[in-house]
Each structure stands twice: as C-alpha cells, then as structure tokens.
C-alpha cells in the first residue's frame, strides 16, 4: 500500500495562493490515519488531489495497491425517491450484507431506515452516507467530516468498531477534534500551510482500539504534539 | 396629398397587372392622387379594411361582397375586373374525360371547404343533378401533392396563375393538361371586383371618379396587346420570383379572362353574373337571404 506525494505544488486555477508547494508525503501502511489542520489549510484539497478530482498540479502523485480511492464528505445526499433502507439494500454487494446490518446497528440508525434521507437529522444523514461507503469493496477511504453532527458517544462507538472491522484498509480521517484524532488515529498528518516549513508534520497517535487500554498520559502527549505541530 | 390605400386581394402577380400598370405609369399621379397599392393575402380582407379605415379602395371577390352585405357592411362595387372567373379546375385528360357535367359523377374532386370553389362545385353538381355522395370531394390545402400523386384527378386552381405553374410542370413531365371551366357549363360566379365603402362614395365622389379613371386606364392599357411587353416587365418587377416565360403565359391567359370580348370594356359589371352569384349563394345556404345586390353595383 502506498500513497506518495512527490514535490506536489497546487493552486486553484485563477488564484494566486499556493495550497501546496513542493509537498512531499509518503504513507505506506493500512490503518486509521488522520488529516488534521486548521480550517482552510487544504485538507479537502489534498483529498481531492488524491482521488483525482483535482488536476493540474505540478509534481507526482503515486498510489499503489489502494484500488480506487473513495472519498466521502458531509454534504452528500441520497436521492429521496425511496427510503434510505432501500437505498442501502440496493448498493450493498451481496458479500457485504451482513456487514451492512452490523454497521447499521453500530451506527445507531436502525430507526432511520424507513425514512427518506431529507427527513433525517444532519447527524443521521451523515451516518447513513458513511455506511454506504463502508459496504463497498475498498482499500482506501477518505472521510471528510463524515461524522459531522454526530454526538461524541456515538462517534466513539463508530470509530472503534470500524477500526476493528477493517484492519487491512487505509482510512484518512478528516476531523477538527484534537482529542478524537489523538485518541483513535495511527498516523496523524498535520497540515501547517504552504508557507511554513515543513508544510506537514507526521504525529503518531494513540491508535486506541476496541480491546485496548488507553494511556491517558500518552493521549495528553499526542495532543500536545499535535497542537505544537499545527 | 393624403395617401390613398388600395388593398388588393392577393399577392402581386399578373392578376393585379392593371393596378400595377396604373401605378407605374403614373396614372394615379396624373389624377393628383397618391395611391399605395398594397398586396393582399389569404388572411386579408379588403372590405374589413374599408370599414376600419385602413384603406379607401380594395379588391374583393363577389362572394365576399355578398357575405359582407349580408352582415351589414356598407360596401359597394365600382368595377368588375374579371369577366370570367379564373377559379377553374385542372385535370389530366388522359385519366378523366370532362365534357359534360355528368362526367363528374364518380370522380374525386378537390375543393377548398368554405371557399368559393366549394360553392361553385356544389352548384355544378346540383345543375348536373349529381348527388353529393356520387362524387368524392377532397379537401384541398395550399399544396398540390395529392394531385401530383394522382390521388385526386380534378384540382381547383386559379387558371391564370397557379394553373400556369401546375400546367407547366405537367407539360414538362410530358403529361397533357385539361381545364374545366364552370362558366362553360352555365355557372357564372363573379370574381374580383373593385370595391369601396358607401361613405367614401357619398362623401368623396370626385376622389372615386378620378381613382377609377386612373385605375381602369391602367387595366385598359395593360391588356392592350401593344403594351404586352411593358405589362410583363412591370409585373416582373413586382413578382420577382416568377420566371419571365411564365409571366408571359400568365399575361396571355389573364387577358382572356379580363377582356374576353372586345365589345365589353374592361371593368364592366355584369349584373347577370352578380345576380346568379347571389342566387347560388342563397341556394347553397352561404347567406340566409338575398341582399339586393344589384342596388350596390355602382359602375364607374
């Protein structure tokens, strides 16, 4: 597995501000990793470069053994012509039916399955949307605030179980919650803006898992590291 | 001077040669008149324009005049431009023989429902004692495809304009052409005439007189064989889309309709014709009752 940015420079057409300037990054192992950094620093742009939704950059972006990268974000919608339960059924490959039912339970959205998407609360919408991606056959999934508007308890449960269910894939989790990122993520890629050197720093998180013990001091340390980096 | 609008019945072509001749040769100007000769068209009605004040003179067919009188319009006829109605039927003599009315029996005949030709054809049928179900009346539109495709063998045309185009095409294709003229079978149905309103006639008799003088002079000169080339040139000037050869042919045919008898001056109103027209229209139920048409003919 490989994600490699090699001296990537990017600016949006028609603008002058570089989002990235000779950015070089390498991530190689599966796991639950994070993209972190202040609002507007370029996390979404990074994800879109990675999936090929943005083009026209200088430098090289290399992906290997990650299949088609998936990108989910928190403004996505499901068509409203049938209930979200029906939609989920439709897009779940046969092999993943069981996984879907598990996810629905973990995500706490059983009660929503009979409703149309537009009749759900924002947090419910985001959870349903994320399940759609998780039942696909994927090796790399970017979650851009995909758990936005979800309460912390539920979020924690979701993260722990998702990590346990998908040990072999590569997640890139975008969130602004330092504690969460420090606690659950493995590698944390902190974006600092194109004008700082280095532009990014890699912090190692606590990677807390379902049947692991959390080290409160380690968490504090990681959080500090992240704060210092950004 | 005030511009006098003169609304024709149809587009500029040989059927209005006299009007154009008068205009081009300055006959109106000589009378001190500034006349605008306006083209007509299918959606135009000179009689309505007289009433609305859009025109002072116009050309209308006899049936229009009679219909209008029946509905209270104060229209009067000043001259009759065609002595023989150009509305006739064209046919292929190699397919049908039309020597007498009886020959119509069993034929498919084109008529424009609601138009003059319907009235005329129905009169012909009545005269020939042919019941309507003994023929098939085919609804005619503005294109000739059914006739060309030989679905309908007898097709109404204006003898002096469409008749020439269509005849030419058939002849080019090596097919003979025949023309069926209702008048030859006793149906006189008056065609284009010059009209004005009673008000203009009463209030501006001098204007009417000088206008008609100029106009009839135009018609007279236009169809004097000596001026044939000039007339053809003038018509060509207004009717650019028609070939000179066709126009020449139209001239020849039109002359026979406008001035068939050297003893009858161009523009002469034929009271018998008008009376018969009125009778036919009443008989066919086009108007409910006679309109005393003779009293509205004011020969100039």
């Amino acid at each position, binding site marked *: 597995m490989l994600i490699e940015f090699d001296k990537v420079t990017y600016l949006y057409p028609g603008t002058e501000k570089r989002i990235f300037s000779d950015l070089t990054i390498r991530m190689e192992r599966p796991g639950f990793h994070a993209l972190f950094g202040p609002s507007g620093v370029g996390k979404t742009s990074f994800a879109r470069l990675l*999936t090929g939704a943005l083009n026209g950059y200088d430098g090289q972006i290399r992906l290997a053994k990650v299949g*088609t990268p*998936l*990108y*989910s*974000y928190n*403004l*996505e*919608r*499901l*068509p*409203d*012509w*049938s209930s979200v339960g029906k939609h989920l059924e439709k*897009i779940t490959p046969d092999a993943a039916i069981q996984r879907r039912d598990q996810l629905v339970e973990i995500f706490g959205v059983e009660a929503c399955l009979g409703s*149309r998407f537009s009749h759900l609360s924002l947090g419910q919408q985001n959870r349903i*949307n994320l399940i*759609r*991606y998780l039942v*696909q056959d994927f090796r790399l999934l970017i979650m851009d605030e995909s758990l936005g508007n979800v309460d912390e308890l539920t979020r924690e449960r979701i993260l722990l179980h998702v990590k346990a269910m998908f040990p072999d894939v590569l997640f890139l989790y975008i969130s602004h919650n330092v504690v969460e990122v420090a606690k659950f993520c493995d590698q944390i890629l902190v974006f600092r803006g194109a004008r700082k050197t280095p532009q990014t720093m890699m912090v190692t998180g606590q990677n807390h898992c379902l049947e692991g013990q959390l080290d409160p001091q380690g968490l504090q340390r990681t959080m500090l590291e992240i704060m210092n980096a950004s | 001077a005030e511009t006098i609008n003169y609304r024709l019945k149809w587009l500029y072509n040989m059927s209005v040669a006299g009007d154009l001749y008068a205009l081009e040769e300055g006959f109106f100007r000589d009378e001190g008149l500034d006349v605008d000769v306006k083209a007509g068209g299918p*959606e135009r*009605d000179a*009689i*309505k324009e007289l*009433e*609305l*004040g859009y025109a002072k003179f116009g050309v209308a067919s006899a049936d*229009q005049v009679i*219909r*209008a009188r029946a*509905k*209270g*319009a*104060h229209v009067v006829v000043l001259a009759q431009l065609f002595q023989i109605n150009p509305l006739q039927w064209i046919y292929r003599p190699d397919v049908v023989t039309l020597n007498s009315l009886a020959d119509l029996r069993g034929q498919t005949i084109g008529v*424009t*429902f*609601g*138009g003059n030709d319907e009235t005329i054809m129905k009169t012909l049928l009545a005269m020939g004692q042919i019941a309507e179900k003994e023929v098939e009346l085919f*609804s005619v*539109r503005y*294109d000739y*495809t*059914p006739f060309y*495709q030989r679905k309908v063998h007898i097709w109404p045309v204006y003898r002096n304009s469409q008749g020439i185009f269509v005849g030419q095409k058939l002849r080019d294709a090596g097919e003979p052409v025949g023309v069926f003229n209702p008048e030859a079978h006793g149906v006189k149905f008056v065609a284009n005439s010059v009209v004005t309103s009673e008000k203009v006639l009463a209030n501006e008799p001098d204007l009417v007189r000088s206008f008609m003088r100029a106009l009839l002079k135009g018609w007279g000169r236009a169809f004097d064989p000596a001026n044939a080339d000039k007339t053809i040139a003038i018509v060509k000037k207004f009717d650019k889309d028609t070939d000179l050869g066709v126009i020449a042919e139209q001239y020849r045919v039109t002359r026979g309709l406008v001035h068939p008898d050297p003893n009858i001056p161009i523009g002469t109103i034929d009271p018998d014709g008008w009376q018969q027209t009125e009778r036919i229209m009443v008989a066919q139920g*086009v108007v409910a009752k006679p309109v005393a048409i003779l009293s509205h003919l004011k020969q100039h």
Partner: protein
Amino acid sequence: MLHRRIYQFLIIYLLGISVLLGVKYSLNLSDYVIPGPGSIWQTGAAVFDSYLHDVMNTLGVAVVGQVFSICLAFLVGIIGRQTTWFGSFIKVAAYNVQAYPIVALAPIIFILLGDGFFTRLLIAAMICYFPLLLSVLGVMSEPITDIEHFYRSTGRMRWQLEVKIRAFENLQKLTTVISGSATLAMAGTIVAEFIAANAGIGYSIRIALYQSDLSKILVALFLVGITLAVYQGLLEWLGVFVRRGWAAA
C-alpha cells in the same frame, strides 16, 4: 384548483370579447368585421355541438401528440445532454427541425406521410416537443454533485440512474413544463388540422376563416380555451400526484 382555472379562463375570455365589442361599438363597425353579441350567441348555439365534438377530437390527438412529444423530448434531451459530438449533433438536429416553420415543412411531410392521422400527430408533436426539449436538456445537463458523487466514485453510475436523479431533483420544474406543454400540444394539433386534416377544430377554424366568419372563430376559441383549462387543471393535479407518489414510493 380546477374550478379556479375555469373561472379564470372565463374572466379572460370575457375580457377579450369586451375589448372586441368595445372596438366594434366605438368605431361603429358592422357585424362583418366584428360580430355583435347576438350574432356570437346565435352562432354559438348553432355550432356548439359540432364544435364541441371537433374539440374533443382535437384533444384526443393532442393528448397522444403530447405523450409522444414527452417521449421524444426525453429521448433527445437524454442523448443531447452529453457533451459528446453525437450529443451536440442530436441537439443541432433537434433545434433545426424546430426552426423550420411547419408551413414550410408540411409539403415535405405530406409527400412522405400522406395526410392521415400520422401527419396530424407528427405536426402536433413537432410543435409541442421543443419547449419540453429545452427544459429537459437544461435539467439533464446539470450535474447534482452531492447526490451523484457516490455513484460515480463507486462506479455505479448508469445513464438511467443519472437521468433519474436529475429528473427527480427537478420534478417541480419538469411537471410545470409538462403540464404547460399541454397548451402547445393543443395549439400544435390545431395548426396541424388547419394545414393538413379534414377533421378537428382546426379544420373548422379554417373553414370559418374562408367564410370570414369571426363569430365561429370566437366560439371555437371559447371551446378550445375551456377544454384546455380543464385538461391542464387535470394535468397539474396529476403532477402534484406524481410528485407525491414518487416521493412516497
């Protein structure tokens, strides 16, 4: 809603008639130019039955023509939404056909199709489909990223799904246009009959025109208008129904 449409139509019709009568009496015009109320009424009584029959006949063709147009518009709209060469070619073709006034095309249509029911249908459809096409094209060529993203990135997007998504999101616009196009189907059929047919209210209007009988035309317009008000009211109701139905399927 339906009866509101009807009495609104009546108001409009009466307004129109009043203007005409106003012109008539202020300019002192004869019945030949503008018929008086008595003459309109009499004509109405005389031709009502046969005209109503004609209008129904016309409506029948219009409905079929409209359905046909809707299919055609969706077909062309769906093909033409693509930015490919073929898509734009289809669009150019569809536009061009529209540019030609039907009167100019009619002779060619007669040659190819004769003058039966199909000609009438084709002309009605040609007049009616274009506005539909424009709307369908507009709707179909605008992506709805937030919904389509998932299907696209997981390789699930088929053209049927794309069409369904865009249609559903623009259902309000589409039903507005479809029920509005009923008007055009009717107008188209009347024109077709006027040019081509031997039946229907368009044919009767043509005869009335030849007879220079404005009363008959006014009666025909009344019947066309009221029929259309009812038909369109029904369509709108159906539109609401479809929207609700699809949303609750």
